[in-house]
């Protein structure tokens, strides 16, 4: 990267660099820490308050973030700098993220069996080769196995099936 193109070009190149964002994220975390830390009482070095270490760590992280972002300029142009993978799997990611959500919802209102089924079923749909039938079968299998293992063997205190506050099993 030559600097002869002026600062505008340098910035445009920088914005496409992965490390630039990596550093940015660290600076963000550092700022949260170092700005919120002092509100918890800093104390003195001898009697440190609860806010001392967070503030100090925040400052360190900002420094690290700046260094990481600055090192983005040394990465030669044209290297693999894409933040997203070559084939983004939005649907699969959504399915994986929805899986614990389904577990929470069905677990809170329906019990272990529906939670297990929903959790596995939703996650299984994310694969590009997944079929409805295959996902249902897998979810059923894991449900039976999960209930046997976690409810009857390990005795996790979660009703297998409940309906509006009524535990059926």
């Amino acid at each position: 990267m030559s600097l002869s193109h002026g600062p505008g070009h340098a910035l445009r190149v920088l914005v496409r660099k992965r490390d630039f964002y990596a550093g940015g994220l660290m600076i963000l975390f550092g700022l949260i820490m170092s700005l919120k830390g002092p509100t918890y009482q800093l104390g003195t070095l001898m009697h440190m308050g609860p806010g001392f270490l967070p503030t100090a760590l925040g400052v360190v992280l900002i420094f690290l973030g700046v260094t990481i972002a600055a090192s983005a300029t040394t990465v030669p142009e044209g290297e693999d700098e894409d933040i997203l993978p070559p084939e983004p799997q939005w649907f699969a990611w959504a399915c994986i993220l929805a899986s614990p959500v389904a577990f929470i919802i069905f677990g809170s209102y329906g019990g272990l069996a529906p939670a297990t089924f929903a959790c596995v079923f939703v996650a299984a749909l994310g694969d590009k080769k997944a079929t409805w039938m295959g996902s249902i079968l897998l979810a059923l299998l894991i449900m039976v196995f999960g209930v046997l293992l976690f409810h009857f063997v390990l005795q996790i205190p979660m009703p297998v099936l409940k309906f509006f506050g009524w535990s059926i099993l």
Partner: protein
Amino acid sequence: MITTALTDLWYGFGVALEPQNLMWCFLGVLIGNMVGVLPGMGPLATISILLPLTFGIKPVGAILMLAGVMYGAQYGGAICSILLNLPCHPPHAVTCLDGYPMTKQGRGGVALGVTVFASFVGASWGITEMVFLSPVLVRVALQFGPAEICSLMLLGLLAGSTLARGSPLKGVAMTVLGLMIGIIGSDIETGAERFTFGLTELDDGVELVALALGLFGMAEFMNSVNQQAEINTKYTNVRLRDMRPSREDIRRSIFPMLRGTIVGSLCALIPGTGPTIASFVAYATEKKVSRTPEKFGTGMIEGVVCPETSTHSSVQGDFIPTMSLGIPGDAVMALLLGALMIQGIVPGPQLISQHPDIFWGLVASFWVGNILLVLLNVPLIGIWVKMLTIPYRFLYPSAMFFVCIGVYAANNDMFQVGEVLVIGILGYVLLRLGFHPAPILLGFVLGPRFEENFRRAMLISRGDILVFLERPISAVFIALCAILILGQLYFRLFKGGKKTSGGEVEQPLAAE
């Protein structure tokens, strides 16, 4: 001194061979061996899932089992590398280079057979080291005050983050992030709530299991979903008969085995350089020592034996700083330490004297476990290979369920399942930005103890920050930290260009 160590070890065997403990150990190595083979399931995720399920059993049994998963997985990982050319487990990535060509020549069975034996040799040395070195370390460490503990932790954290994979700078940033996540919750001294954002569920801090499963479970699944390469099972038909090495193979393996052991045990002593580094260094050493370096990569048995031995020697050696000083070298050790703390056991130099059953039982269980693994591995390879054909689309949804139920079971709290979700997203973003999230766990586990000791040291020294340099032992640790940082800077600034010459060795990692 040797006799006391041996008597203690004898006592340890008594603990490890109790029927219940033996069962947990067996279960641990069996599960470990299995997940070691499965691509996309690492020991980290497995230990985190099992962790909440061990709350109900006694601390000794729990730690024997979780440690068993750790070293059992190392035996499994080699199978994946040798038979399938899948570098899915970082410590075994380098084994692919010569292991897979051997398989293509129809000598995969021999490679596996020799590997099993070499692994046992490496592990045995690692354990021996632990038996004799830990008591010595402990005797020194018991003199440590808060200042020394603090500097030692600083050294451990720095080494753990800069010597691991990836950019050292990003590693340190991850450690600091881990320390920050460790701060969330009530302050130990004043009870002030920090960074809870008004959520009372966060008062007790972020749950270790949720953090580990978010980073190494969910983020990992998001990373590898729909990215699976076709598994080529053409060469996986290994019979027991094929595994017996010829006399020539044995002759060629002996010295690489010894060299691997030495490299591995040295790497174990330097905090932060875990099995992955050990195996790469071992391969490079072996290539340098060899009379026919040009033949490496074409199925040299030396290129399989040496890295595998060093991996195992290093895995066992990694337990030394973890168990005797309370300073974990990598994320798995941090997790095991976390498991101990959940059981109410304070890690540190006093562990050996306060809980001899745990320490010596663990050491003895390493022998037991490794013997079990050798016995298991030979007949079970066929079954493990069959398991490899389980498609990822069945594997990860099932694993998602285990993640959810595992986190829920930790405290019977649905909120923590939500924690996994948030941490999983964060972990994936960090992965895509080129961070390796392992040091987060290191910082998280050490964070609270670091803060406590730092405050105490400052209180004792009346606010004099120079206390860390005035006390000799502490000064040595700080000096080592400085050497570590300056060394990294030196290599980065002056040797940066030459690093790519090792590209050949780094290739399997890039394919990961």
